[in-house]
C-alpha cells in the first residue's frame, strides 16, 4: 500500500531521516513513536507525498511517488485519510460542510449523501455540532471532526499525526476507539504519537506494530511496548 525503502530526507542541508524503510500493508495497524522533533510528522508527510524524499524509494498504492503527476498525487490522497496535527479546516464553512468537503472535491454529490454524513457525525459524537464553525469547537471536537473528514471517503489507509495531542485522556481513548473500529473494518492505520500510554492502551485491543524513530531511522520498538 505505502512502502518506503532506504528513504532519506534532508531539509536545508540537515538530514532529518536516513535509511528509513517501512511497509504499510492493507489492514495493518502501526504506531510511530519517538520524541518531539524526531521526524514522525516528516514520515507521515512523505507518506501522503507532501514531501519528496531526498533519496530512496517511495511507492504509494503501487506507484513510484516521484513518477506521479500532480493529478495522480491528488487521486492517491483521496484513497487516504489524513488527520493533521493542527486539524486544518476551512473556517468559514460549517463542521458538516468541512467533513463533506472531500466528497465535493472528488466530484460526488455531498447532498445526496446527507444521511451518511449525519451518521458519520453522530459516530464521532458531533451530531449536535454539525452547523458550528470550526473555530467554535473544542480541541477534542476538532480532532473528531478531522477524523470524520479523514474517513468520509472510506479511505484505504488513515494517517494520523498526533491525533490525541490536544485532548484529555478520556477523549484520547475515545478517538483511539474510533481508529480501532476503522481498522477492524479493514482500513490500515498509521498513528504518529509520542504518547506511549496510548500505544499500550491500543495494544490491548488490536495487533499493532510499534515503530520508533531513533537516530534518524525507523526501527521496531522493544517488547516493553
Amino acid at each position, binding site marked *: 500500500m505505502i512502502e518506503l525503502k532506504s528513504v532519506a530526507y534532508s531539509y536545508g542541508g540537515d538530514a532529518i531521516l536516513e535509511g528509513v524503510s517501512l511497509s504499510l500493508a492493507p489492514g495493518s495497524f502501526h504506531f510511530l513513536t519517538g520524541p518531539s522533533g524526531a521526524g514522525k510528522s516528516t514520515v507521515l508527510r512523505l507518506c501522503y507525498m*507532501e514531501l519528496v524524499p531526498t533519496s530512496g524509494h517511495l511507492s504509494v498504492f503501487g506507484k513510484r511517488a516521484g513518477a506521479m503527476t*500532480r493529478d495522480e498525487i491528488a487521486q492517491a*490522497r483521496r484513497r*487516504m485519510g489524513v488527520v493533521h496535527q493542527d486539524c486544518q479546516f476551512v473556517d468559514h464553512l460549517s463542521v458538516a460542510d468541512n467533513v463533506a*468537503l472531500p466528497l465535493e*472535491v472528488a466530484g460526488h454529490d455531498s447532498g445526496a449523501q446527507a444521511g451518511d454524513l449525519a451518521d458519520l457525525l453522530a459516530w464521532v459524537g458531533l451530531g449536535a455540532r454539525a452547523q458550528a464553525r470550526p473555530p467554535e469547537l473544542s480541541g477534542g471536537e476538532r480532532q473528531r471532526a478531522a477524523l470524520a473528514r479523514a474517513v468520509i471517503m472510506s479511505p484505504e489507509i488513515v494517517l494520523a499525526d498526533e491525533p490525541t495531542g490536544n485532548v484529555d485522556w478520556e477523549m484520547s481513548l475515545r478517538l483511539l476507539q474510533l481508529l480501532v473500529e476503522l481498522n477492524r473494518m479493514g482500513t490500515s492505520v498509521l498513528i504518529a504519537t509520542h504518547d506511549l500510554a496510548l500505544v499500550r492502551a491500543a495494544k490491548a485491543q488490536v495487533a499493532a506494530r510499534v515503530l520508533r524513530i531513533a537516530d534518524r531511522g525507523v526501527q521496531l520498538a522493544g517488547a516493553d511496548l
Partner: protein
Amino acid sequence: MLRADAGPGRVVPPSGFTARLTLLTAAAMAVLAVFALAASLAADRVADRWAEALARTATVRVAAPAGQLEAQVAAALEVLRTTPGVASARRLTQEEEQALLTPWLGPDLPLDALPVPALIEVIEAPGGIDAAGLSARLAGEAPGAVFDDHTRWRAPLVAAAARLRGLGFVALALIGAATAAMVALAAQSALAANARVIATLRLIGARDAWIARAFVRRFTLRAAAGALAGTAAGMATVGALPPGEVDGLLGDLGLRGKEWLWPLAIPPAAAVVAFAATRLAAFRVLRETR
C-alpha cells in the same frame, strides 16, 4: 458559475481586501474603457467625415473689385464647366456664405457691405482634377480666382483624427492589460492569504484545477460585477455630455445610435480578462507547492 458560493467557489472566504480591490479596479477600468471607446468612435466619425470631404470637394475663391466680381465668377464657372474631373460647380448663396462666417463674425453680418470673396463649391469626379492645370487656366480667365483643393489643411487633420482613433484603441488595450495585471495581483494576494485553505484542500485530494476554479470563479464574477457598475457609470457620464455639433469640425464627442451597444461588451470582456489572468496566476502559484 453565476453563484459565487456554489461549488468550489464557496471554499474561498466571501469577503476581504482583494474582493474590494478587484471590484474597484474593474469598475474604474470600465469607466476609462467607456471614455476611450467614446473618444475612439468619435475620432473615427471625424476621420471618416474629413476623409470623405477631402476626397470629393474643393473650393474656388473669387476676390475681385465690386464691379468685376460677377464677371470673374462667371468666367471661373465657365472654366470649371469645361475642366475634366469636375463633376459639378456652383456658387454658394449669400445665406450659405453667411452660415459659414457666422461662427467667426456673428449672426448679423452685413455681407453686402463687406468685401467678402465669392465662393464656388466644386464637386470632383472620381478621376480627380489636375489642380495645377486648373489654377493656370483660372489665372488666365479669372485673375481673382484661387483654386483650393483643401489638401493642405484637411490631410493633416485626417491624419491626426486617424492617430487619435488609433490612440483610443491603444488606450483600450492598455486598460485591458492593466485590468489583467491588477486582477492577477489580487488573485495572487488572495491565494497567499488563503494558503491554509489551499493546504487543507490538498490534504483531502483536491486537484489544482479544482482549487484554481474556486478562485477563478470568484474573481471572474467580481471583475464582471465591477465592470458592469463602471460601464453603467461611464455610459451615464458620456450620455450627460453636452451635445456637440454633429456636422461641425470636431463633431459630437459622445456615442451615437448603435455605438451605444459597444460599451455593453466591456463587462463580458472584463470577465474574460479576469478569468484568464486569475487562472494563469492560480496555476503558477499552485505549481510552487505539492
